[in-house]
């Protein structure tokens, strides 16, 4: 038992690793603050494009969304970071992460928002258009607010995944939380920093998970 505690929960090692874990925590935090809005912007654009009834839009959109949802995000990131320079585009580590998440996360947010838009009854758009609102104004003021509300639990769920997924930034040597924890692990030959990182993730995400279940319960209740 003592060996187990020493190997996974050594307070001594955690306190030594604490400063670099904290640095990693901040990197994870600002990476999330960067990639979540990027994903939401990309997702909103994709969802709005999905309402255009032209095959010249629909087919490329379909290919785009399917491709970026199917390709593993880690592969995508490596490809952007290591592959784009061959095409003459130098990208920084942060730039590669931003682009990778814009493409991958945007495709997921886009599908969620598209489902949200489709859940709004058609009469809403007709009523808005009948009063002279343009298509875009109707989207902005009438359709999107309802769409977002209808899929809020899915959006939050996806956001949780995105925060955890920022750990793949370690492959381009961005010192986010998990990267720092593994550095500390390899120096100390001890798993405690990893466990500490897990606890930090938990403390960061647990309130969001709670909020999510409350929202889901409320939506279930509203449907009854």
């Amino acid at each position: 038992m003592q060996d187990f505690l020493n190997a996974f929960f050594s307070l001594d090692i955690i306190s030594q690793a604490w400063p670099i874990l904290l640095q990693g925590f901040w990197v994870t935090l600002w990476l999330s603050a960067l990639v979540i809005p990027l994903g939401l912007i990309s997702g909103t654009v994709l969802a709005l494009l999905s309402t255009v009834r032209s095959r010249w839009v629909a087919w490329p959109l379909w290919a785009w969304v399917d491709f970026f949802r199917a390709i593993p995000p880690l592969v995508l990131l490596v490809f952007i970071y290591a592959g784009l320079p061959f095409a003459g585009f130098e990208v920084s580590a942060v730039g590669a992460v931003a682009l990778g998440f814009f493409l991958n996360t945007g495709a997921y947010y886009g599908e969620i928002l598209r489902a949200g838009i489709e859940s709004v009854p058609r009469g809403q758009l007709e009523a808005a258009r009948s009063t002279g609102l343009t298509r875009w104004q109707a989207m902005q003021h009438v359709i999107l607010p309802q769409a977002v509300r209808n899929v809020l639990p899915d959006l939050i769920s996806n956001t949780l995944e995105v925060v955890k997924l920022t750990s793949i930034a370690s492959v381009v040597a961005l010192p986010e939380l998990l990267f720092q924890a593994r550095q500390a692990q390899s120096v100390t030959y001890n798993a405690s920093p990893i466990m500490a990182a897990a606890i930090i993730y938990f403390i960061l995400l647990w309130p969001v998970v709670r909020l999510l279940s409350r929202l889901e319960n409320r939506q279930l209740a509203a449907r009854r």
Partner: protein
Amino acid sequence: MAAPIVAATGIHKHFGALHVLKNVDLLVAERELVFVIGPSGSGKSTLLRCLNRLEEPSGGSIIVDGIDMLARSTDINKARQRIGMVFQQFNLYPHMTALGNVMLALRKVQGKDKTEAEARARAALARVDLADRAEHFPGQLSGGQQQRVAIARAIALEPRVMLFDEPTSALDPELVGGVLQAMRELRESGMTMVVVSHEMAFARAAADRVVFMADGQVVEQGPPASVFGNPQHERTRAFIGQIERH
């Protein structure tokens, strides 16, 4: 008839292989209340929805208040402000209060400032007798109240013509009266109205003209007394007989 404010002529509408409007004409004079009746599938709602181009006609011409609705050069969003529409399912925006519902187009389409938009919206709600429900959300209102908010939302833009697409069909019987009362007052204020509905008693009392449609065509039209009391066509007779037995 004076120069019509609504002149739809030779309207055709195809949905794929289905030919739902076959060369329909509908002329409406200013201040006239026209009732369009007919069995379901007769194309009456489609005709109404063509008038403000919620439905794109496959052929024909539609002039409303001097504006060629089908011309490419027509700003459809501008033209639609002159044509209010009320829907069977109300279609209020559930995330906005009654006041918010009425104010949206005043603000975003007509560009009125907040104070003026709110004053106009409150006046429109007062006209449908809902001044005291302005801060309620649609979910907190009865169906009849929701439909009256929908009427307020349309008349706040000061349209020249109002279109009603089965405005009372989704309502419990005891809530129909309030909506018809709001329509009656609108009529008395001189609004031009085209109403698709099965409210025969209201049609008899208030309509200037009844248009009977079947199979995508206008079969017969005239004053309510003659269409209801002395229908000329077999289809009309059968339909009126059916409706009156209910």
